[in-house]
């Protein structure tokens, strides 16, 4: 039995986006595009992850001219370990669910209301 992940689906998507290139710093807007999350959802997740020490954040050293400095994010070592474990668990869970669905689909009622051919087989 696969246990339920400690992270929500949205948090998992952020972790997945950050763990694609764990050593690189990423911007909020890039993460939003990768995950499809709105800023009002993405940033609270980043705050929680940063509070838990799973994500580190810093301000850009050299901003583009005429633009404010951007905030950058990447996974910490603990964050990477946690993300790897959580994503693996989520994948297992998804696979288990897909398996259950296949079994259920195989149990579609047969014409005549019968659920299996057991009784009809010699």
């Amino acid at each position: 039995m696969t246990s339920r992940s400690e992270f929500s689906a949205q948090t998992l998507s952020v972790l997945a986006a950050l763990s694609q290139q764990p050593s690189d710093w990423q911007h909020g807007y890039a993460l939003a595009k990768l995950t499809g999350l709105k800023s009002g959802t993405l940033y609270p997740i980043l705050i929680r992850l940063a509070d838990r020490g799973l994500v580190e954040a810093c301000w850009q050293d050299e901003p583009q001219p005429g633009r404010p400095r951007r905030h950058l994010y990447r996974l910490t070592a603990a964050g990477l370990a946690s993300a790897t474990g959580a994503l693996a668990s989520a994948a297992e869970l998804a696979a288990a669910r897909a398996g259950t669905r296949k079994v259920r689909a195989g149990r579609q009622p047969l014409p005549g209301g019968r659920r299996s051919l057991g009784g009809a087989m010699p």
Partner: protein
Amino acid sequence: MSGLKHWIAAVWAEAHEVPPGLPRLAWRAGGIWMLARETARPLRLTKAALFTAAAAVAAGAAWPMPGVGHAAVSRFHVIATILLLAGLPMLARRWAGPAAPSRAGRALRVCCWAALLAFLPALAVVEAFANLTPARPDFRRVFCGIQGCDGVPGRSTGGPPWAGEIVLLLLTIGYLGVVLYLTSRRSGISRSTLAIGTGTGLLLGLVMYAVAPLGLGNDATNPWLPGSAADPLVALAWILLAGGPAGAAWLANRRHRRAGGDRRADGDRRAGGGRPRAGFRIDQGIAAGLLATVTGALFVTALGTGTVALLLESAGLRHWLSPGQPLTAIATYRTEIYAGTNVFGYLLIWMSFPVIGLIAGATVASVFADSAPPEPNPAAVPGLPM
């Protein structure tokens, strides 16, 4: 808060990367939403502070005056109720998880706590009056047969028995337990069931209160209504009492008969999708029936006891409650005595309503548990042999 400023600055800085127009506006609106959400995070502290303030006000108003005969019982009632209101949610959180993310559920919890806090001073006023020996000799001559006058004139003596107090506390524990469990995340009660049960309960409570705002009895019926047994509102109250929980159970059951059911209060769907199991639908029906009567009983008891307490305390309300009637002192006192005595009829509502809701909900949910929309046509399922 400085940390939050830093995050807001981050959202704002990033907005320059977002395409101008609506997307950028949406990005900034998200930042404002984040600010609102993060500011509201210490809401638990705010809630605790609000509860403490409300509990202090209620306890102060309900605390028995010096010289009241039943001071020990009243003090015990105040302290025990506030301890229950403060402690049970913490216990319930460990046992049944946090509150479900349902507006109806949260509103029910808040209203339940507010009702029980308001009930404290209201009951204290009524109990003090019910055990009062009239100060005026002419009142004593007229009413001593009804109220008993073995105390000091003008003083409240005697009081509620300890056994009654224990029953009341047990009922309070039962109500709080039911509300906490049904509105908790782990109960599996869906948002629609919570909304159906609470809505039906509010309607039931409102009609019951309109029928009997001055206690449950024939002596002090609603002053605005004829008050006869055949009154349409009285008939509606009986119909709602019998049919409300059953109707709520049926609605909740029906709401979950579709494939995949409804979104549960915790936001998850029932595992595996497909048609919900019969047990789940029965649970929803029972919960809706029980919620309807529990909400109705809480509503009518808190409002009714409050109205009677105001009647006893406020001269203005007496005239408002009896429009166009000449209120002699003795007539007013008579109404107050009857209302004060009839309040204890609400105890009957407290005891009986949840039982009615449970039975009606369980019966209806069991009867309709197997009813389901027609199975999909096998011919329409690809891959199946014809």
